Structure formats: structure tokens, C-alpha cells
């Protein structure tokens, strides 16, 4: 393990030990703050019950990501190809981010129901923006001298896009995607809080109401693990695809 990894591991061990010690020394009731050891135990022992919920939330997030990619990529390319479109759409994009997702969640449940659709939509709204913005920026960052080279080669827009602009934009695209997947869980969980019959957000609300605090934390732990898994997956994919940026 490298130095930064060791530092991170040391820091987390220190924090968890402090937490565990404090809870035991001051005998804090479990329903207020359970010790990390109990949370971990709950997360493992209750896994058969938690996993189906995690699967639902995971599916919502993944569908949200897929939907966001399917819409953000064409839109970003269109905005790049037609600057008029970018000027016209930018205010709407910013506005869509200025509205708190929390405010939309109840409406989305009314419109799309208690099922997965409203949560997928929530995740989509959240992920869509960073991907679109970073991809447009990435496409626009292409060096004008390369553009001149391609125009003198008589390359069509499509050829220039696939051979030049797209690979050029990939590092920024992945930066946006990483931000997107790391906040995607927020959208799905808020959707589940407002109205759902399954999912980790639903499990958290239910357990919270029954003062089953260790289970709330266990659900958060699973959620965090899913978020990190997605982050790692995107990072691995990025390293596999962008082999030249060293």
C-alpha cells in the first residue's frame, strides 16, 4: 500500500477508535449513537435483509447514470457543435441545478409514482449536469492549432469529433462522471425518503422511526460502499481508456 493509502487507513482507524471509545466511556445509548463495531455487525448480520433494498437503490442509481449518459453526451455534443444552442440552453441547465432536488422530490413522486421511476429520475437530474458541463468544457478546450490541422485535412465534423474532440474531452468527461456517480446516491435516497416501499432510503426512514439506529447506520454503510464501488469502477474504466495521459 502506498503512503497516501496508509495515511487514509490510519486516519479512519483513529476516528473509529475514538468513536468506539467515546460511546463506551460515556455509555451513550445505542439508539442515539451506536458504536462502529455494532454498526459493522448489524451491516453483516442483517445483510440478507439489507441486500434486496441495496439492490433496488443500486438499480435506481445505475439506471440514472445510464439515462444521464444517454442524454448528456448527445446534448453536450449538440451544444458544442452549435454555440447558439449552448447560449440558449445554459440558463436552463444552471436553473435546473439552482432548484434543490429536495423540493422536486415530492412532486416527482406524485407524477411518477412510488416505484423506481421517480428515483431514477431524481438520480438522472443530479448526474446529468456535471457530465454535460464537463463534457462541453472538454470539447471546447481543444487546441485551435489541432482544429486548423483537421480542417486542412478536409475532415468532416463527425470525423473530427471521433478522432480529435472526443478523445481530447475524455479526461474532463471522466472528471464529470466521477462527480456524477458520487452524488448519484443522494438523488436516489431522497426519492426513497419521500415515498417508496423499498430501497436503502426507505429502510433508513423505517428504522429511524423505530429508533433502530444501528440499522440506519448499517444502511448508510452499504450506501457508502456502493458509492465507493461506483467511484472505483469509473476510475478503473478511466485508466483503461485514457492510456496516453501520462
Amino acid at each position, binding site marked *: 500500500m502506498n503512503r497516501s493509502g496508509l495515511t487514509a487507513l490510519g486516519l479512519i482507524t483513529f476516528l473509529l477508535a475514538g468513536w468506539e471509545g467515546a460511546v463506551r466511556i460515556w455509555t451513550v445509548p445505542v439508539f442515539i449513537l451506536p458504536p462502529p463495531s455494532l454498526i459493522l455487525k448489524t451491516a453483516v448480520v442483517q445483510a440478507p435483509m439489507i441486500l434486496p433494498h441495496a439492490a433496488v437503490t443500486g438499480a435506481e442509481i445505475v439506471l440514472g447514470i445510464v439515462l444521464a449518459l444517454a442524454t448528456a453526451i448527445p446534448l453536450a455534443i449538440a451544444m458544442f457543435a452549435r454555440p447558439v444552442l449552448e447560449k440558449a440552453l445554459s440558463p436552463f441547465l444552471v436553473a435546473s441545478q439552482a432548484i434543490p432536488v429536495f423540493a422536486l422530490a415530492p412532486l416527482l413522486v406524485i407524477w411518477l409514482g412510488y416505484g423506481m421511476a421517480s428515483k431514477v429520475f431524481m438520480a438522472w437530474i443530479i448526474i446529468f449536469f456535471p457530465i454535460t458541463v464537463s463534457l462541453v468544457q472538454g470539447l471546447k478546450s481543444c487546441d485551435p*492549432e*489541432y482544429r*486548423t*490541422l*483537421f*480542417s*486542412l*485535412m*478536409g*475532415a*468532416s465534423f463527425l*470525423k*473530427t469529433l471521433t*478522432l*480529435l474532440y472526443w*478523445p481530447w474531452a475524455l479526461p474532463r468527461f471522466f472528471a464529470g462522471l466521477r462527480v456524477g456517480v458520487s452524488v448519484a446516491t443522494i438523488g436516489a435516497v431522497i426519492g426513497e425518503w419521500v415515498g417508496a416501499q423499498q430501497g436503502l432510503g426507505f429502510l433508513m426512514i423505517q428504522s429511524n422511526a423505530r429508533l433502530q439506529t444501528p440499522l440506519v447506520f448499517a444502511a448508510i454503510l452499504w450506501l457508502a460502499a456502493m458509492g465507493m464501488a461506483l467511484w472505483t469502477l469509473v476510475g478503473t474504466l478511466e485508466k483503461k481508456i485514457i*492510456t*496516453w*495521459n*501520462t
Partner: protein
Amino acid sequence: MLQITDLAKYYNGQPVFSGLDLQLPAGRFQVLLGPSGCGKTSLFNTLTGVTPADEGTITWQGQTVPHLGSLCAYMHQKDLLLPWFSLMDNALLPARTRGRDMAGARVRAENLFSRLGLDGYESHRPNQVSGGMRQRCALVRTLMFDRDLILLDEPLSALDAITRQRLQHLLLLLQTEFAKTILMITHDVDEALLLADDIFVSSSLPMTLIRRIQLNQPKPRAFDDPDLLHIKADILAHLVKGKAV
């Protein structure tokens, strides 16, 4: 033969250049030399069709053309290789973007690779080879444009003396071995002196040709050639005068 007649470009009603006349006989290496800020980029953009000319005509081999965008190849001081492609794929770009016969293009590129000492490096990425190799690969790509006219954009500026010497030899190959007609636009006097058959000195804004110098010194040339130093002094005097007007 390239003939540029009465070419003009205006920006907000002010001429960047106007009444610009240039003749490039086939196979010659001609340099347009002006002070920085003389409208070099504007002229370049007009010639390549990035921005259309406001007045004047461009004639290539007897045919009047709107611009040289589809007639010339482009070489820059930076190698402009794409880091995500191998050297061979970079060299094949001109063929690929035009959807040409790829098998034929590959054979040509392979021949050029071995002519320029790049064989064995076809599948290397640009970041895996030296700066000199990248420049040789850029030269192969320039030749793969398959065009008789080459526009050079300050190819030797901002290079150290050794790289400059090496690239000078390389650029001269365009003329001596591949019989290209070359127009270089630059503000770098040394660069012009090392490469040119003819130097056109221009004043700045509006860009006007104020002096034409023919150089008969054999190439490759050395920096410290007394004849060249003499000419350099003359050019610098003109550049300073041109700028003061």
C-alpha cells in the same frame, strides 16, 4: 505556381492587410517575414479559409480558388501529434479523414517511415519517442496530405539551437527530396534566413511588403554565415523602419 493578387482583409473597417501580392514559383521556399503582430495569423487564416478574404484572388496552377484549405498541407512548430494514436495512425490521419484508400496509404506511410528512420516505431505512442522522432512523424503526416503546397507556421521558433538545426534539415527535405512548394509565415528572422529562397519583408498593420530579398546561399545554412548576418542587419533595419511608420 501560387499567385496571390491584391489580397485584403479588414477588421472593423481597418485593413489588416490590403493589396497584398505574392508569387510562389513551384518548388521554391518562400518566406513572408513581418514583425510580430503584423497580421500573420490573419493572413494564415485567410489563406487556409478559416476566415474568407475581403478582396483579391488566389490562383493555384492557373485556377482561381477561394482559399488554399483543400490544396495545402500544414506544418507547425509543435508536432501536433495526437497522443491517443500510434505514430502510424497519426501519419495516416490525412488519409483517414478523407476516407482515402487506406491500404495504399499505409504502404506509402511505411515507405516514408523507413525513409525518415522511423521504422520499428510504427506502433509507439508519441509520448514514448523523442521530440525529434515526433517531428519526423509530423513530417510524414505532412507528406501524407499528398499536396504540392505546404504552409509553415513559425516552424523553428521557440526551439533550442540543436533542435532548430535538426528540424531545419528536416524541413529542407520537403523542398529538396519531395519537391514541395513552400510558404512560410513567420516573425523570426533567423528562421527565415536559414530556410528561404526568397524573403518578403513586411511592415505591420496594414501588412505591406516593403522588401524582397533573394538568397542564393546553399542550404543547410549556418547561423554565423557572414553573408547571412549582413542580410539579417538589412532585414532588421527594414523591420524597424516598417514598424515605425
